[in-house]
């Protein structure tokens, strides 16, 4: 099966330091890949590279079998959606925010109806007319997820989308998010520090450290991994700093 998104031999540098050095990574249709690892491991860099937001210094990103270039990056971006840790809503109404991506992508007819459906799905349709900057963190992230799903992306890329939400709201939102993912069959890549999210949502887990892929497997396999199993133990929503053998990451 042709992967939906893939990277080959990519290198991303920040000055002289390697941020990312990955020989091969792909996202297959309908899977949810969790990217985990300590701070500075390169998870977010890999996500923005996959989203065609930051081009790699070398190597190639593929969308299906198509090579992503400067020329077609916008077309590819318009087939994806990204949700960041902060909701990043614009100074406008919640509805306008949800409809924005559709309008930017040239879908004008029915865009508002579609946006309203997704706002309802995430339980924030009653806030449609309110300025998005006045929402609470949880409400704003729900609106942000509605905005992403309204785009019906081929791949949804999420960078710690639940990290800035309080524990009670987070658990509820993860459950809702899971049900939406399953019902729509959306392919997703999720960057997270929280193994609860990995177990709840992911079908495959990739461990990154120092910019390279260290391990790969199902969440259950990673949970018992001799080096990386520590990521699953008592690290919910905290920064992972120790390997299971006690050495510092």
């Amino acid at each position: 099966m042709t992967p939906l998104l893939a990277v080959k031999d990519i290198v991303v540098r920040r000055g002289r330091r390697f941020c990312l050095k990955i020989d091969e990574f792909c996202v297959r249709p309908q899977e949810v890949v969790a990217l985990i690892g300590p701070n500075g491991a390169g998870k977010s860099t890999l996500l923005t590279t996959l989203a065609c937001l930051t081009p790699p210094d070398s190597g190639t990103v593929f969308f299906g079998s198509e090579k992503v270039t400067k020329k077609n990056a916008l077309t590819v971006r318009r087939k994806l959606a990204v949700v960041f840790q902060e909701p990043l809503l614009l100074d406008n109404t919640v509805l306008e925010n949800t409809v924005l991506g559709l309008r930017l992508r040239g879908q004008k007819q029915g865009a508002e109806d579609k946006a309203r459906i997704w706002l309802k799905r995430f339980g924030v349709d009653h806030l449609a007319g309110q300025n998005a900057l006045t929402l609470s963190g949880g409400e704003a992230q729900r609106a942000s997820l509605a905005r992403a799903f309204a785009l019906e992306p081929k791949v949804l890329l999420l960078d710690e989308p639940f990290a800035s939400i309080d524990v009670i709201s987070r658990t509820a939102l993860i459950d809702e998010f899971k049900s939406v993912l399953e019902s729509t069959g959306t392919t997703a890549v999720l960057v997270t520090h929280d193994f609860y999210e990995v177990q709840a949502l992911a079908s495959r887990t990739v461990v990154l450290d120092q910019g390279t892929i260290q391990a790969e497997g199902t969440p259950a396999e990673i949970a018992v991994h001799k080096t990386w199993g520590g990521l699953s133990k008592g690290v919910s929503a905290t920064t992972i700093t120790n390997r299971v053998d006690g050495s510092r990451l």
Partner: protein
Amino acid sequence: MDFIGQGFIKALQLLLSGDKEVYSIALLTIKVSGTATLISLILGVPMGLYFAVARFRGREFMVGAVNAGMGLPPTVVGLWVALFFWRRGPLGFLGLMYTPAAMVIAQTIIALPLVAGLTMSAVQQLSPKLRLQILALGASPLQFWWLILHEVRLGVLAAVMAGFGRVIAEVGASMAVGGNVRWYSRVLTTSIVLEVNKGNFSLALALSFILLFISYGVTYWLTVLQQRRRQV
């Protein structure tokens, strides 16, 4: 202190009696400073947006120049513009010396760094991730800049207010390149200086009140616009 009260009454009298010279001076003040602000807005906003987001060689030098330009003394600007437009100057052939056009050019040079600098600062206060989010939503380059501008519109309005406030209050540049020619290039600030030099303090005060009315009126209108948008 009686001077102040008398000056205020005289200002009202001049305005209510429809004094042609005062109206002509006030109108030219609005025209010159309004046009300079508009031009600095057209040039300064894209410049501020670009300097805030783009990374290019020499950016620090350009940003430093914009920041330094925010405190440019109007007299220095007047002197340099006069040197260029003087009959024997490199642009003397244009015949702009002692014209309102030369005053507009000088005032634009004064307002431009303010508009560009404050726009740049407004954009830099946005989360860098917001830029990525806008691109991720599928914005083309033109849509991207438009959305960024929309996000910083309150900051841009503040920049316009600061730019207009600075140029309507300056006197050095207008005096140097406009010449304070009666019925032609005389604006409120140059008139005030003239009346002070003549010892005509009550008229100078009256003109200063008119200048304050105009300055406050325009700024108030921009503030209303800014705050109304804030409530969307």
